[in-house]
């Protein structure tokens, strides 16, 4: 008998299953839609590795996904859904842009290091609100995070079209992010920036926290069995609130890191997909923070492949979205059925009383 004894001994296989199936599906789509399937194949699957430029862009694309993956991971581990990631990412980006633009008279690095914690706290407070409403009034957090997140998307759109608009850009976008306030560019002209180290660092910290800290223990047990946690004496309400706070804070941070690393301005709608893909990434990674890194790399690889496939062959960029959607569909179907079957069991026992 060893440490491998757990309910998911088939975990490795079932974790690899969705991406593999999706890749097979992608292959079929390429074969069906391309006039030059062989080149398209090579362009999609191999080109992303062919030059440091592409590799750099690939890793830069993975950076915010790792962080949103972690954000989803925290909420899932506590047995809660944060469907507001998309809005939190966007909001974090807009706030980060706003702050560094306001503080452009300060030395750039100071602006950045003030902006990141502020963004984290703001995002945390917003998601924490959903957590608080859940424990206070039993508002379903699945709905509240989703609705608040959607409102936030519109508010951010408004800000970028109105008060923060820089007409000289010719886009719906803010002014230029001052260079000193940006993350260190690792391999120009690719977008790769030092934010990737921050994202990996966060994954390691979170992995340690979930396993080795008392707070991580609380989150895990609350996620596994609320009734037991309440009976055992874990402050369930506080744990829910903090889990949402952490999740929202990380999501907002993902937006800030991307804006201060890979973007020139905060552009309207730039984040489309980071939040939802973060959920898929966490689901593929089975909520393990360290596995979030390869899962995010996989998702970003699909994007990178779609770009090279468009450049060097006749593939449309939508192919990445298509494959991602298939992955998302499979993993979320798996996870939702788990979630609801668990909810049925614990729901009967007055989940949030006391």
């Amino acid at each position: 008998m060893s440490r491998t004894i757990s309910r998911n001994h088939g975990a490795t296989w079932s974790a690899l299953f969705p991406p593999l199936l999706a890749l097979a599906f992608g292959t079929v789509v390429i074969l069906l839609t391309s006039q030059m399937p062989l080149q398209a194949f090579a362009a999609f699957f191999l080109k992303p590795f062919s030059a440091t430029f592409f590799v750099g862009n690939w890793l830069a694309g993975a950076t915010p996904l790792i962080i949103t993956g972690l954000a989803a991971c925290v909420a899932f581990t506590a047995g809660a859904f944060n469907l507001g990631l998309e809005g939190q990412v966007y909001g974090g980006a807009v706030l980060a842009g706003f702050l560094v633009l306001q503080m452009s008279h300060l030395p750039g690095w100071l602006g950045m290091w003030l902006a990141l914690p502020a963004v984290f706290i703001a995002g945390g407070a917003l998601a924490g609100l959903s957590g608080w409403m859940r424990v206070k009034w039993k508002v379903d957090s699945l709905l509240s995070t989703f609705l608040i997140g959607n409102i936030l998307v519109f508010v951010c759109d408004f800000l970028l079209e109105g008060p923060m608009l820089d007409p000289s850009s010719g886009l719906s976008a803010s002014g230029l992010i001052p260079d000193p306030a940006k993350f260190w560019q690792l391999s120009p002209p690719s977008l790769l920036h030092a934010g990737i180290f921050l994202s990996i660092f966060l994954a390691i910290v979170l992995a340690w926290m979930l396993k080795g800290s008392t707070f991580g223990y609380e989150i895990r047990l609350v996620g596994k069995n609320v009734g037991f946690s309440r009976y055992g004496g874990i402050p369930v309400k506080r744990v829910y609130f903090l889990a949402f706070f952490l999740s929202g804070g990380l999501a907002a941070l993902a937006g800030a890191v991307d804006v201060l690393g890979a973007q020139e301005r905060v552009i309207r709608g730039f984040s489309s997909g980071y939040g939802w893909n973060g959920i898929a990434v966490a689901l593929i990674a089975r909520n393990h923070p360290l596995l979030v890194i390869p899962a995010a790399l996989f998702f970003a690889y699909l994007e990178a492949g779609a770009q090279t496939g468009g450049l060097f062959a006749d593939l449309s960029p939508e192919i990445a979205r298509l494959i991602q959607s298939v992955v998302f569909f499979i993993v979320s179907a798996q996870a939702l059925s788990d979630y609801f079957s668990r909810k049925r069991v614990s729901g009967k026992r007055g989940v949030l009383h006391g």
Partner: protein
Amino acid sequence: MQTILEMKGITKFFPANQVHALDGVDLQVNTGAIHALVGENGAGKTTLMRILNGWFPANSGSMVFKGEKAFFRSPAEAFAHGIGMVHQHFRLVEDFSVVQNVVLGVEPRVGKLFASRHVPQKLQQVAQESQITVDFHARVKDLSIGDRQKVTLLRLLYRDSDFLILDEPTSVLTPLEAKGFFNILLTLQSKGKTIVWVSHHLHEVKQYASEVSVLRKGKMVFSGSLSSVSVDKLSEMMVGESVKETYQREPPPKRSAPVLSVSHFSLDHSGHYGRFEDVSLELFPGEIQGIAGVSGSGQSALAHCIAGLLEPSSGTLSYQGKDIVGESPRELREQKLVFVPEDRLHEGSCVHASISENWVVSRYYHPPFSREGRLQFPTIQEQTLKWVRDFQLDESGLKDVLHFEVGFLSGGNIQKVLLSRELSHDPRVLVVCDPTWGLDVKSTRFVREKLLELRQKGCAILLVSADLDELLELSDWIGVFFNGRLVGNLQNYLSSGEESPAKLPDRFLVSRYMTGISGAGKEQAS
């Protein structure tokens, strides 16, 4: 008599925990028999039934059912051959009516629509033949456990099952319900149904079964007619050593101030645990206050209110002279008021977490179990091991407490993990619900002796139990709940000077209170 089922040389090995659950087991069942299958927890009864039912395959062995030589590959296939299984936990749709549950999957139709209130002729006929009476239009969630069991039976009979497997059918029933259940059982037998009945209750087996098989540690140690074997002999074969039936219990010490007093306590809304009204009760050091009652009469809700898991609607609750309504389970446990819930799989433990994660839930937040927010795994492992060893957890569960999931332990071992955690807090008041439910003879004895040991040490115990023998054996007082009210509190020891044991309550007296025949506060003695 004709043989309907013959299993030969059945072997089942579980690689996950390296256990030979069954080791060359033979089982022969005759048509029209009530065949009792007895054995301790973990003896392999359920495993054998699951192989019969097509749940999972055997590693080796052969099976002949109704003359066909084959194993079933799924419960559906077994069902199609007339094998129906009633599980310990009924699988019914709570929000559906009785009829809807019975016909689920084979619904009668009016045109293309489901005739949801229609009671098919066949159902009425089946119910009449088997003498099962239940309100067809009641919703299952409003039914008592006994009625739910009847619905499950009806569902199987309606779909032409003629070979019924009943897994511990009476462990959830009151004595009166059980009596009704046995009448049904005998009626079914007279209609030619074959019944395999998995049980711990040897007296019931002796009374109602026609043949018996005894499993011990994966081996069949006896199989044959019941007339040739006594209850004592069965019990001996089951456990492999004789277990004495009675417990030494001196009268309780002279009463001083109550350590916990509940007065005019009510819980209005009826949730999962039921409701109760105007309950007053006092617990004294060194006494066991038993609570009997049909399940759902409010006794479980009372226990949860005392433990700080439900908020009472009105009334006071004072512990050592201090009002404790509104205090959290953690605060109460720190003050040595300790609770052991009846639902050990969902509330009392987390089956997906490891043994040590389960054990440390009441302590993880302070040194030496954690320091500055960091869990101290070596300490946690060492303390968990020390306590579960002390509670005689089987060696099989001890290999790796940090990683071994509680869900893989047997019911008895899960209860030992739970109790070792709670009793390690050295309780002054212990509220405990159904502590031996579903446990084997040896574990049951172990748990009961632990309770008496605590009582000896001056702990006040509130023992809520569906097992009347347990209450009669252990309690100094037996309070009885009926319909949310405490309708009686019977003294269950002889005061000095009294001699006649005839004055003590027995199963039938308590049963009368439980069903509302006696009591209403008049007999309240204190």
